Each structure stands twice: as structure tokens, then as C-alpha cells.
């Protein structure tokens, strides 16, 4: 465990040394700031059923598709390209420890970027100075639900990024792979669900199974304050499985 902590600290340092991390952070925050602005505009023009935090978090997938590949594509691909993974693995470090450290570092950064978005409602409240609107901006259920969803689903998204980075020595390929997989997982599953294939005995994807994989459904539950254990199981087991595959890839390619 101490070895994972040492590697995690090193990975965090490396993330903070790298310009691409800051670019990812700034771009994501700009994008999310724009979404927050659009959310406020929408609310100001017509009455909405949903609260501002819920509307803002419902667009979670766009920043995810931007942040996760940019944060994770470097992790193993760059080490493999430079060859530093070889020196790393000839020290008494297990591939599992390395994968876990890289995952935790990228995940911590992912959470940090999302945590910074709390500044948006704070700034809005400070600029508007309307106490009755603050109740909506800082609605505890919507805010907590949104952030819990981001934290839980982020484990799977980041692990997918780490996995794709372990597959190749090209950062570009890793980034494209991770973007494609995340897009299929988030948007693709929702699209299949929307097509309403006829379910029956011969159906490959029964509706219940599709519902289980529906990330937007999970988001709806979380934003309503409904904490169900099934999404937790889905994201956490998915994360462990994907990280397990990454370990196998690192072991086999070293």
C-alpha cells in the first residue's frame, strides 16, 4: 500500500509538471463555465422544472469526453514510448501497484476539476445577490446528487482512460480509443435504448439489461437524491474489471 502511495505522489507530481494537464483543466473549466452560463440563460428566459445544478450536471458527458482522454492518454502510452515503464517495473514495483497509482492520480485530478465547478454557483450568487435564487443555486439534494454521481461514474470513466493508455505507445491513439469507448458507453447505450428494439426471447439486449447500463438513468436517480446501490455496483465492479485488464496488458507487454 505504501508503494502505491509513493507512486501516486509521483504521478500527481508528473501530472502537475505536464502542460497538457493544465490545458485539459482550463479547457474543461471554460467549457463547463459556458454550460453553466447557458443553464442560467435558459432558466432566466423560461421557467424550468429542473434546478440549475441538475440542468448543469445533465451535460456531464461533454466535459467527461474531453477531460478523461486528455488526463489519461499520457499515463502509460508516454511511459511506454519513452521506455520508462521498463525502469519502473525493474524496481520492486508490481504492475497492479502502478496501474492503481496512475488511476488514483488521474481520478484525483478529475475530481479536482469537477470540484472547481463549485465556483460557478458561488460566483453567480455573488454577482446576482438574490437570496431567493441562492436556494435554487445551492440546492443541497441536487448538488450532492450531482457530485456523488460525478465521483462514482468517474471511477469507471477514468479507468477506461487508463486501460486504453495501457494498450498503445501513442498518446493520440490512446486518446481516440478512450474517447470512442466513452462515447459508446455514455451516448451509444442511450441511443440503442432510444431506438426501442423489439424485446423478446431472442433479443440480445433485453430492456432490463439496457436499463442497467444506462448512465443517463443513473444520473436521473442521483439528481433526484435517489441513492441506489446498483449503479455503485456497476461502476465499481466495472472499474475493477477494467483496471484488472490494464494490469494484464501491462504484464503481457512488459
Amino acid at each position, binding site marked *: 500500500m505504501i*508503494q502505491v502511495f*509513493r*507512486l501516486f505522489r*509521483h504521478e500527481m*507530481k*508528473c501530472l502537475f*509538471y*505536464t502542460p497538457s494537464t493544465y490545458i485539459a483543466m482550463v479547457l474543461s473549466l471554460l467549457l463547463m463555465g459556458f454550460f453553466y452560463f447557458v443553464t442560467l440563460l435558459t432558466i432566466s428566459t423560461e421557467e424550468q422544472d429542473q434546478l440549475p445544478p441538475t440542468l448543469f450536471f445533465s451535460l456531464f458527458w461533454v466535459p467527461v469526453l474531453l477531460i478523461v482522454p486528455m488526463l489519461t492518454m499520457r499515463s502509460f502510452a508516454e511511459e511506454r514510448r*519513452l*521506455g*520508462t515503464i*521498463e*525502469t*519502473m*517495473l*525493474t*524496481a*520492486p*514495483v*508490481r504492475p497492479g501497484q502502478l496501474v492503481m497509482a496512475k488511476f488514483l492520480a488521474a481520478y484525483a485530478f478529475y475530481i479536482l476539476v469537477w470540484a472547481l465547478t463549485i465556483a460557478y454557483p458561488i460566483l453567480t450568487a455573488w454577482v446576482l445577490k438574490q437570496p431567493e435564487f441562492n436556494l435554487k443555486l445551492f440546492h443541497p439534494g441536487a448538488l450532492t446528487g450531482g457530485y456523488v454521481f460525478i465521483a462514482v461514474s468517474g471511477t469507471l470513466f477514468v479507468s477506461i482512460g487508463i486501460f486504453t493508455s495501457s494498450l498503445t505507445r501513442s498518446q493520440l491513439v490512446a486518446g481516440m480509443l478512450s474517447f470512442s469507448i466513452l462515447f459508446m458507453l455514455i451516448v451509444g447505450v442511450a441511443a440503442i435504448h432510444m431506438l426501442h428494439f423489439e424485446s423478446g426471447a431472442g433479443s440480445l439486449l433485453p430492456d432490463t439489461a439496457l436499463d442497467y447500463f444506462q448512465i443517463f438513468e443513473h444520473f436521473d436517480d442521483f439528481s433526484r437524491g435517489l441513492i441506489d446501490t446498483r449503479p455503485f455496483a456497476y461502476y465499481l465492479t466495472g472499474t475493477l474489471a477494467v483496471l484488472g485488464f490494464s494490469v494484464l496488458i501491462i504484464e503481457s507487454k*512488459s
Partner: protein
Amino acid sequence: METPEHSIVAKSLCKRFGKTEAVRDLSFTVDQGEIVGFLGPNGAGKSTTLRMLTGILPATSGHLNVCGKAVPYHDREIRKQIGYMPENNPLPEDMRVIEYLRFRAQIKGIPFRQRRKRIEHAMEVCELHRKARRRIIGTLSKGFRQRVGIADSILAGPAITILDEPTIGLDPHQVIAIRRLLANLRGETTVIFSSHILSEVEISCDKILIMNQGRLVASGTADELRKEFLPGSRYRLEAAGTADQITRSLHSLGDDWAVDLNPVPMDGYYSVSLLNNENGSDGKKVLNYLMNVEKMTIRSFHPIRPNLEDVFLKATRRSWEVPAEGIPDSSKERKPE
């Protein structure tokens, strides 16, 4: 048989990558404290062998013991005993030298109290302790980068230090610095390094292993390899007289002597090479004979030692010409196990 003084014992080691056989039936031993040079043309299997020794690359078949432990079963423990600098010496570009060594010391499990001392020692041995210590690795020259790689490999005081091409791309000054560094390591650790600079290997190493096409084609000290691959006694002399007379006189030494006279004299002296294919031919006898030859004046007489380059070329050429089964394993011949 494996004895405690053997740091490494490899028996019938093979490594395949698909259909390609990178290492074939490789057997050798390395004793504790030895400095061993790995030679071979590009693609001979040197780096693959070194990577197998570190445990990072599993062998397809064979038996490999490092520090008395079988590599596949104790790879984690063995990694603690080994310091390794891979080919091309990959280093993180954005870190400072001292930061990198601190991090490496941490993950190598050096206790906190010893960490500082060990880092300072490694930097001192590699002459990084002055200006380079706070430099960003990406801005260092090739020579200094090599030193950082070597400092990392000796950081934890390993029983075995494996350096894959530590002298590649270095200028002569830097090569001399690396030679000095290897000399500093003598007695501290067993060193195995691969190189293409044969003169370096000859100067620095106690033992030389030559590989070609995945096979070990020669092993032993430089003198043993000379005797095996370029047997015989060689002398060069400068003699005054007529070319015909000198040749005739030298031929009278015996049929086992080959005489090669340069027909263009320098300052009235002819340069002549004498070669006897038998090992251990006595130069003193030859010189005594030559001194007594009439009408021939000897200005200089000295033995010629073939350099390692000649041995290397001969050994690798022989392995290309002879099929695998035909190559005698010199290590087995000398050190039966």
C-alpha cells in the same frame, strides 16, 4: 554446479518471440564481483538476455538463477538485488536529477534514514553531485543522462548492476568517464554491461561474453578469447639488410613460422610480421636466433597482441559460417558444471 560465488547461472536459456528465436540455448555463469562485458552485433540477443536477467522478460525455456534464486519464482526479490539501466536509458524529462533519484530511492524501498546517504553516494560515484544535481533531466547532455541512469541503477547498492549499452552515443571524454565509473564500481557490485566499444570492454572487464544470432559464441577473459580465436604467436620486427636475405633467414626459423615482409623499407629498415600458429611460442628464442643472423641488423622486435576487435570479428564470423550445433560452447569447455 551452482556455487554461492556465482551471481548468475544461466542454463539452456531460450527466448522466442513468435517464430523468431531471439536467444538459443544460452548457458553461462557470472561470479560475484566480476565485471562482465556482453558483446555482439546488433540483434544478437544481448538486450533480450539482459532483460531476462532482470526478470522483466520471462524466458521461454531454460533455467536462470540470479543471486541464488530462480528468476521466475522470486522475481520480486531478485529485482531488489538488481540495478538495471535499459538500452537508450529512458528517463523522465521533466524531473530534476535529485528529485528523480529521491523517487527511485523511495520505490526501491531504501529506508528513510539511509536514503539521503545512498543518493549522495550514487551521485558522487557518478560525478553528479556538483552542478548536475538540480538540473532538469531533459536539459542534460547525453553523458550526464547516462550518469543519471547509472546512478539510479547503483542507488540501492544492488548485488548485480546491469547496464545495457552505457557508452552508446558518448564522446571519448564521456567514455573515459564511464570507464572510471565502472572502475569505481569494482568491488561494490557485480557488473554486467553490453557495449559496442570493444576497447572499453577489454579495459574494464574481467570476463567477456560474445553473442551472435541469439547464441553464445565465446566466453572467457580477453586473453583466453585471443588464444581460442586467434591462436598463435605474433611478432613484428624491423630489420636492415636485403629483403631476400631477411626472408630467407626468417624462413630458416622453421616451417611453422609465416613471414610477411613489407617490401617498402622505412629508413633502410624492413617491417616484418612473424606468425606462428602454435600458442606460447617463445619470443626470447626467436630474438636470440635473429641476433645471431649475419648480415641482418634488428632495430626493434616486439610481440603483437590481436585486439578484441579481431577476436570479435573472428568469433561472430565463425558463428555465421558454422551451424548452431557446430559451435563449441567455450564457457562449458572451460567451466564444467
